[in-house]
């Protein structure tokens, strides 16, 4: 039996697996319901997803339940995953984000079919672009994020980890709304320039 105290102490950084390996595991789950690949994905992502949900305001037991639900979705939807279009972490992020919107935001979703609609759109398009390895893109974005000025990285993290709206970020950081927006705009502009360079 692990106590809460031990749990907190055990929180640590884990560099985890190579992105290409994670993608390959996800493909195996989709193609042949590969349980050992699924276990590898679980070992890598479950502790991260649990932190993700806790940062979104969920209690620890509920975060654990949401991790279970996330993996049930992954198991069901893995057949839709295309490694040419998204890294495993990106694809799993979108599942977790949608689940979070569905379960944690009090105003809820406007319509339950939204997610399905965009999954279809994701599957059908994106072939026409020049092929760039998703692992390479992920690495480039990771480097770019570490190079952002700290005030831009801060608003990005508040958006993605704590789903803070522009107005919420402004009040949290005591900044004018326009400043929050321009920081987000600058950060995104920088990432896009970088990705455009990769595609050439």
């Amino acid at each position, binding site marked *: 039996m692990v106590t809460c105290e031990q749990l907190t102490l055990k929180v640590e950084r884990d560099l985890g697996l190579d992105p290409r390996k994670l993608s390959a595991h996800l493909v195996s789950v989709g193609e042949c319901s590969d349980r050992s690949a699924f276990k590898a994905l679980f070992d890598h992502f479950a502790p991260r997803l649990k932190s993700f949900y806790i940062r979104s305001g969920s209690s620890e037991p509920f975060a654990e339940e949401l991790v279970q639900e996330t993996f049930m979705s992954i198991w069901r939807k893995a057949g839709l995953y295309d490694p040419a279009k998204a890294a495993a972490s990106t694809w799993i992020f979108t599942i977790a984000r949608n689940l979070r919107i569905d379960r944690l935001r009090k105003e809820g979703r*406007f319509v339950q079919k939204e997610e399905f609609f965009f999954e279809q759109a994701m599957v059908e398009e994106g072939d026409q672009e020049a092929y760039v390895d998703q692992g390479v893109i*992920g690495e480039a*974005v990771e480097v770019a994020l570490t190079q952002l000025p700290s005030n831009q990285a801060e608003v990005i993290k508040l958006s993605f980890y704590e789903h803070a709206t522009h107005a919420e970020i402004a009040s949290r950081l005591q900044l004018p709304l326009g400043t929050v927006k321009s920081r987000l705009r600058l950060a995104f502009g920088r990432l896009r320039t970088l990705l455009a360079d990769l595609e050439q």
Partner: protein
Amino acid sequence: MINHHPSDETILSYAAGAMSAASRLFVSSHLSVCESCRERVRTAEVVGGVLLNDIECTPVSADAFDQLMARIDSNAVETSAVNGVGTSSSKVASADMVGLPEPLQLLLDGGFDELKWKTVAPGVKQYPLPVDVLPGEKVRLLKLSPGFVTPEHSHHGHEMTMVLKGSFSDETGRYKAGDVQEMDGSVHHQPIADTEEDCICLVVTDAPLQFKGVINKLLQPFIGF
């Protein structure tokens, strides 16, 4: 051809899931008709993936994986049923709804002609959409009669407008079906429905608009903009 798109900060917050339900409805309505913005969202989602990978680890309970597999095995039948969601849509789009963004179609009971529009001022009708909103936020369809000139106004908060039918023009340009206008703070503008047909827009506002001039101020409580 769509010429006006949501801002980068709006796309980023959409990808982050950091938006009200009304704003999500707005952005996804635009995405459903705009491939280039779907591509922008995919780019922003890469950031989400990288941040998910970079987050600290919180251990899950020791038997979490076994529990998960037990649930998956007992759910085996449900799997295919869940995959069928969306293909079994019982709603048949009326002729008037063809070409409407799909997220909106799912919210509306009928085409534009069948909606119960309420007149808010001569030449302006509105239809509030059934979406839960944040305090001070509004999400609705607005219908401007041909040639209707909106009283000049400015914005205290944020306003996002997407044209669904017809078109309008203001100082910043011409907006046609699919085009998005985002307005902030102190911008004054005076949109005009500029063709022979009604101009119908999806509009999300997060604070009341301020009208210029005494007459317009008298109108304001009515219009409830």
